[in-house]
């Protein structure tokens, strides 16, 4: 079996082996969204206006919660070292890992956001725009959060440091996505912005794994 096949099979088995990691982000999302009307007001018109932005931020945070677990278990078990002995460049294995992570953890989370949208009375056309922006933006965000996770692998109790280090770099994506959502609620054309978002994601997904690979090698080489 090829390396790619073995990798995918293992990622699938890991999802089944750790169901908590699968459900916790969704649980977090719905829980946090439930706080919003409590902290603001139950007025559905007001909620509908800010709802999409709130869901975006909550989804972002839910994603970041999972980020540390990308490499940490393999690093602690010594399996990350073994990645280096596969007959593939490290950045390619990183791309595989991030793709699997996106497919098995992030996309399911995105599929739960309509539920949050209903809770905050988000209008349907905005909800669709929200889904599309999340699907287009999350590859880039996954890659950025992977870099944060890879850089902080060696530190004890890192947890949130990887997130803090990476969040400022999310700003362009957040602004772009928000731009799309504003235009969607106005009814104007969102395609050019979506194209830009998609292009940014592709660029990030191609270039960042290289940096992630370097950071992983740094941590593997340092632990002995």
């Amino acid at each position, binding site marked *: 079996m090829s390396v790619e096949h073995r990798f995918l099979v293992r990622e699938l088995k890991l999802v089944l082996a750790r169901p908590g990691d699968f459900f916790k982000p969704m649980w977090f999302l719905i829980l946090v969204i439930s706080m919003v009307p409590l902290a603001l007001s139950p007025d559905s018109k007001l909620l509908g206006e800010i709802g999409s932005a709130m869901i975006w931020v909550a989804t972002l945070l839910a994603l970041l919660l999972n980020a540390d677990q990308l490499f940490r278990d*393999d690093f602690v078990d010594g*399996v990350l070292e073994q990645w280096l002995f596969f007959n593939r460049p490290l950045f390619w294995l990183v791309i595989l890992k991030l793709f699997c992570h996106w497919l098995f953890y992030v996309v399911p989370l995105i599929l739960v956001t309509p539920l949050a949208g209903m809770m905050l009375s988000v209008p349907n056309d905005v909800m669709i725009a929200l889904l599309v922006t999340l699907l287009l933006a999350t590859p880039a965000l996954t890659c950025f959060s992977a870099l944060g996770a890879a850089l902080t692998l060696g530190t004890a109790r890192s947890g949130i440091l990887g997130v803090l280090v990476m969040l400022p770099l999310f700003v362009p994506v957040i602004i772009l996505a928000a731009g799309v959502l504003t235009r969607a609620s106005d009814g104007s054309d969102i395609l050019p912005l979506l194209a830009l978002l998609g292009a940014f994601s592709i660029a990030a997904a191609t270039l960042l794994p290289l940096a992630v690979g370097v950071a992983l090698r740094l941590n593997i080489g340092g632990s002995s």
Partner: protein
Amino acid sequence: MLIKPKTLQFQNLTCVRDDRCLFADLSMTLPPGSLLRVAGPNGAGKTTLLRILSALHEPDSGTVQIGEVEDHLESRQEILYLGHKPQVCQDLSIMDNLMFLTEASQMKCAQAVQFVGLKGCEDSLVRELSQGQGRRCGLARLWCHEVPIWILDEPYTALDPGMVAILEDRINIHVGEGGVCVFTTHQNPTNLRFETLELARVS
């Protein structure tokens, strides 16, 4: 098992750690069929040397070469590295781990599990096994991963005498087929014939 025999050679390896020189100008050629034990007191740099030979760590100077290929990183897939960490995923079974880490077929992996005496534990999660059994999970790769160069860092850890004998048999077979094996241990191997490389502390 069929392996393509390769020569492992290193030249002028030097490593400095925290302003302390661990070793300098180490050179050696290990033709197929070599068995080398790296010995020395704690902190002498044995693990570091093994990690340099496995291309996990860069030396401060010197080169390592496997076979004809000059770039060490290119020939990483010829190496099996066994380190201090368990090197198996705790949340999966030993079969799942072996199928991921090696190219071996399911049948070969099952045979490897039998060889290390874990028959019946194929589908248990590694984290449910005892420490000795967990250690054997990492060793099982030696029976199904067909590569010529073995770098084993303290393979005897947590093994009972029966398992030690099985391991030494396996190493002898590997070396007999033309493989190369470099290892460290604090115990005294009884059934192996090997050369020794002493790393003394340079102060």
